[in-house]
């Protein structure tokens, strides 16, 4: 969540548990931050010597990736995943070092604060007025086998700070006036909780889609929309079905790469987004040349069980030459119900 909540401590605890269970554990890199409790917990764990590099008059210590790989433990503990390595190191970032260690077949437990997550960079800057320079890509979180949130209430974190458990006493006041303000810590905590909740949800979806457990745990409806008036009805029909099924509703618009919307389409798209909010639906916008492939990818990502599509605007000739969209969806989405929402204007008895 933030500095001082006890990430390093928690990492070491995990390492000690693994060691107690008979696993071969080493510390690849530890940032004890002069915290006695942390240093005490590290006692008894083997430490791979760091690599000392000279940078001008400064001597900088970095993780010795090759030494960790040569040592070949079962598990390496590597602190501060978002750290930027000293100039001249093989990798610019520590997460790249970790990638190498993982590739060598060594499991890694690492630590990171939520503000370093790349996709949250703008949100963090807005919340804290601090632009975080050391970021790491979201894929690292997605690829992790497990993400553990080390949570602490903002008040408790401030207490730890005041007690000198996070920074030396002389830095405490400045920290409390800046990054460690209560409202900022609350916002960071909320972000961290949300991020982990989303991660849990994504993992659940992956489990649902595991070939061995194809049975979805719940219905989920996807409405395919385009920025045109008839999509309003498609979304509304999909919502009614979703309500009956007690299902979540997603609306998907697949945008052609580089496509520019005219004014009317922009208005239509904005209206669809507003309707999605009113209906409690999630509006998803994806870019893709291949409509069916993009839909398939979203369907499997989100665990969709029903797809609503409008009557395709296909001429008979195009359908014969290129195949029908509905047929392609049926073929490419086995096990997913496809429902075509008719265009009322096409009903012969309705036009007088």
């Amino acid at each position: 969540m933030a500095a001082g909540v006890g990430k390093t401590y928690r990492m070491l605890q995990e390492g000690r548990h693994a060691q107690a269970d008979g696993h071969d554990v080493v510390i690849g890199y530890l940032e004890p931050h002069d915290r006695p409790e942390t240093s005490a917990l590290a006692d008894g764990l083997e430490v791979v010597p760091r690599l000392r590099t000279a940078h001008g008059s400064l001597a900088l210590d970095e993780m010795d990736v090759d030494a960790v790989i040569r040592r070949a433990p079962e598990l390496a503990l590597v602190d501060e995943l978002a750290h930027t390595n000293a100039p001249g190191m093989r990798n610019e970032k520590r997460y790249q070092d970790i990638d190498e260690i993982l590739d060598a077949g060594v499991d890694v437990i690492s630590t990171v604060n939520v503000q370093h997550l790349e996709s949250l960079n703008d949100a963090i800057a807005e919340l804290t007025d601090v632009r975080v320079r050391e970021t790491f890509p979201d894929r690292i979180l997605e690829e992790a086998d497990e993400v553990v949130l080390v949570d602490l209430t903002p008040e408790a974190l401030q207490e730890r700070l005041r007690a000198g458990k996070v920074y030396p006493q002389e830095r405490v006041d400045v920290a409390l006036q800046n990054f460690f303000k209560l409202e900022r810590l609350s916002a960071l905590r909320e972000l961290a909780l949300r991020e982990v909740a989303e991660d849990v949800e994504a993992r659940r979806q992956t489990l649902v889609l595991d070939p061995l457990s194809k049975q979805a745990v719940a219905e989920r409806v996807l409405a395919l929309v385009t920025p045109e008036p008839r999509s309003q009805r498609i979304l509304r029909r999909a919502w009614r079905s979703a309500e009956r099924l007690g299902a979540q509703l997603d609306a998907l618009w697949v945008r052609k790469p580089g496509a520019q919307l005219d004014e009317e389409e922009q208005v239509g798209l904005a209206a669809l987004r507003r309707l999605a909010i009113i209906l409690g639906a999630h509006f998803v916008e994806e870019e893709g040349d291949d409509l069916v492939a993009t839909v398939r990818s979203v369907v499997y990502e989100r665990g969709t069980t029903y797809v609503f599509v409008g009557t395709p605007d296909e001429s008979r000739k195009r359908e014969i030459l290129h195949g029908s969209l509905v047929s392609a969806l049926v073929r490419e989405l086995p096990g997913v119900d496809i429902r075509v929402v008719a265009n009322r204007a096409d009903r012969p008895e309705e036009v007088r």
Partner: protein
Amino acid sequence: MTKLDAGLLGAAIVLAVALVVVLARRRPPKRLPVSGAARRVLVPFSGALDPTVLDAAIRIARAEGAVLVPAYLLIVPLRYGEDAPLRDEVKLAMPVLEAVEHRALRAGVPVDARIEKGRTLTHALRRLWEVEQFDRIVAPAPVNGGGGFNEKELAWLLAHAPTETLVLKPTPAAARTAA
């Protein structure tokens, strides 16, 4: 060409004509053309829409070759955030909007329906105007104490509407069940 050949040819032509007729009959009626810059007639309402008002709006849209935009306005209760989903309210709005849409399409008028929300009906209307343009507004006045905008709302509407506005009040006797 023998008589038999001529007969077969004739039968084939008849069959072809019959197929064309069948195919033509099966083809849905031509959609009403909507040009890129079609005029838009907004019909805002909430709860119910008097059929007299709807029919008048349909006639106007038809005469102008315009798209009818029936907009169901929802009020977001103060206990909810402005962007909260409104499931219960939408459940009431949905069938009414479908019925309105159905009636307009039966009359051959293209429809682009909306559901808009706000803290009040006028707030919802203002939100809609802020993001979309309309060429005419047809606003229902209340009839028999129900449906339509009230006096205060109508006064606001006439003062703030960004375009030509028509307030329609059906005769109380003609007031029927809403669309």
